[in-house]
């Protein structure tokens, strides 16, 4: 790592960061509605976003700074195994094409803001809805923490904060500032802030990747040389491979499938989806969102370029920022760092809003203050969004980074366990609410215990949470723990549903009806959020 502060890069970084901050505060006035004190406005941007805004918002939301740092980092460290992110993001879209429009419709008919709202309405069970809400909050917190880790990595390479300073206050000051800014505009502008900033973030990211993927290979002598030197490194180290070896096929496939199933269980993905203005916006987005997957694939290749260019870091998370610093002129390195930094702010804002909505709707309103007015709901949500971020910050500053990564890994396993209740519930009312709750509990416990028992393959000192793969019972191959837990979860749910139905256990009241799942904007009972003139013209 170069010593000292890279002045030009830092200047560009600070400039772009400030520009985005102004944008974040201005967002409060963007497409403003009359009833600005409702949770629909603050937490879902008035449910008014069209195809392009939704595209940017979802893209900014799902492809986080952490993704941009972690995916190439995994390639840098292990080769082929890290590339599972590409099939993972390919499989996501056919999935959401199938189930998300139904969730959109039923949420619009009944005013649901979170997935737990739907689960409560569908199964008439506050317990199940609480389980889904808690899982969502638990899984989101470490995810926010990782976004801050992403910012830290960039600051570290630029030579400010992080390991460059020994004084604890100076060390964390830049992160604290970035964090304070984020918290302030999320509080004042709600979901509109990340939606607007996502435009800048994506523009920057696309520019950086387009340049990186053309410029760096030319400077390094072409892909042939890049892959040759990567192969050499993996062979010499005896770890990692250029192509997935047969023994790792199960791991690769289960990771891709399990992660794809889990992605749209995360509260922040759902928040971004529900903010769109019609069913069609979602379906149309599944056809254009894969552009991001392509970008992710190209980005992953940067991991190999880092090897070829001789980047040598003990923490693979620093590989890509370091590659940028080494290869790019200072000013463009600044642009690249800003892209990663801003790339962390967008998802962190959406995640904290999503977690806050879950708390407000499914814990505060359901259990503490059932008669809360929309104004009170919004107020609580705003405050909780702050608390959630402070929590994430404390997490990052007080604990070892590996703790955040471990929890994120667990979060993925946990959130997948809400799939049967949510997606199952969207298509059938056959599952029994208590069976779903039991299945969820079994999946959570199995997943946590299995992950706890994984020792790190590279670090002998780390005996727990060393990875997300374990032997699949009965098959004997290594596979993603989350998916195994999910299969167990479904099995328990099905068996217990038969049992509970035989015992005639009370089913709970379903407040939805079949036509709710196919309703579209403009249908009776689906509020049209656009100004009447525009909405009328489209019919």
């Amino acid at each position, binding site marked *: 790592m170069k010593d000292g502060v890279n002045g030009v890069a830092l200047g560009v970084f600070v400039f772009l960061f400030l520009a985005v901050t102004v944008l974040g505060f201005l967002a409060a006035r963007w497409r403003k509605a009359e009833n600005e004190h409702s949770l629909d406005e603050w937490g879902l941007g008035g449910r008014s976003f069209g195809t392009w805004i939704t595209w940017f918002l979802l893209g900014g939301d799902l492809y986080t700074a952490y993704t941009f740092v972690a995916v190439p980092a995994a390639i840098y460290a292990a080769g082929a195994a890290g590339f599972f992110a590409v099939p993972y993001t390919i499989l996501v879209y056919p999935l959401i094409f199938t189930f998300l429009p139904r969730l959109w419709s039923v949420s619009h008919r009944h005013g649901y803001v979170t997935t737990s709202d739907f689960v409560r309405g569908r199964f008439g069970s506050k317990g199940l809805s609480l389980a889904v809400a808690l899982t969502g909050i638990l899984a989101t917190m470490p995810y926010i923490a990782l976004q801050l880790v992403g910012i830290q990595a960039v600051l570290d390479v630029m030579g400010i904060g992080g390991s460059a300073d020994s004084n604890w206050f100076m060390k964390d000051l830049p992160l604290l500032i970035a964090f304070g800014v984020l918290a302030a505009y999320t509080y004042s502008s709600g979901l509109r802030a990340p939606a607007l900033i996502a435009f800048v973030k994506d523009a920057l990211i696309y520019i950086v990747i387009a340049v990186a993927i053309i410029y760096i290979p030319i400077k390094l002598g072409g892909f042939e040389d890049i892959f040759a030197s990567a192969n050499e490194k993996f062979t010499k180290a005896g770890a990692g491979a250029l192509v997935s*070896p047969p023994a790792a096929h199960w791991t690769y496939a289960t990771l*891709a499938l399990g992660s794809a199933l889990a992605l749209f269980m995360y509260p922040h993905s759902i928040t971004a989806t529900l903010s769109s203005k019609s069913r069609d916006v979602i379906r149309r987005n599944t056809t254009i969102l894969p552009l991001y997957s392509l970008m992710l694939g190209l980005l992953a290749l940067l991991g190999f370029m880092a090897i070829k260019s001789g980047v040598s870091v003990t923490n693979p998370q620093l590989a890509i920022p370091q590659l940028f610093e080494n290869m790019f002129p200072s000013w463009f390195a600044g642009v690249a760092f800003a892209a990663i930094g801003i790339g962390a702010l967008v998802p962190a804002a959406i995640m904290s809003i999503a977690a806050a909505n879950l708390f407000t709707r499914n814990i505060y309103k359901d259990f503490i203050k059932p008669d809360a007015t929309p104004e009170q709901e919004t107020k609580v949500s705003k405050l909780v969004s702050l608390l959630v971020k402070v929590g994430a910050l404390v997490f990052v500053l007080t604990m070892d980074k590996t703790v955040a990564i471990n929890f994120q890994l667990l979060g993925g396993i946990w959130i997948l366990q809400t799939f049967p209740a949510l997606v199952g519930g969207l298509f059938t009312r056959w599952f029994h609410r208590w069976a779903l709750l039991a299945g969820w509990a079994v999946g959570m416990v199995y997943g946590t215990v299995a992950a706890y028992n994984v020792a790190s393959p590279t670090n002998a000192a780390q005996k727990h949470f060393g990875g997300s793969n374990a032997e699949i019972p009965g098959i004997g191959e290594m596979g993603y723990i989350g998916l195994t837990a999910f299969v167990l979860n479904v099995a328990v749910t099905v068996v217990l549903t038969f049992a509970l139905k035989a015992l005639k256990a009370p089913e709970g009241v379903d407040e939805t009806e079949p036509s709710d799942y196919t309703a579209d904007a403009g249908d009776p009972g689906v509020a049209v959020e656009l100004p009447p003139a525009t909405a009328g013209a489209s019919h």
Partner: protein
Amino acid sequence: MSEVPEVRPPVVTPVRVIIAVCLIAPFVAMLWVGSYARTDPTLIGIPFFYWYQMLWVLISSALTMTAYKLWQRDQRARRGGTE
């Protein structure tokens, strides 16, 4: 609820089968890792393993697009038929 038995179009139609195939194909292709875990043929120096999966981003995107268009047409036909 009307007394007259409604003439409902069948649930499974050739168009819907095509839609299902479009949506399922990426799963078969991507989860069958053995079919693409090799180095050759390379494309501008990039091993098959990598460029093949990136190619599938485009293929699956085209398939989802097809499914979307077919679904739209299916829904329009149904709405036109019942009204």
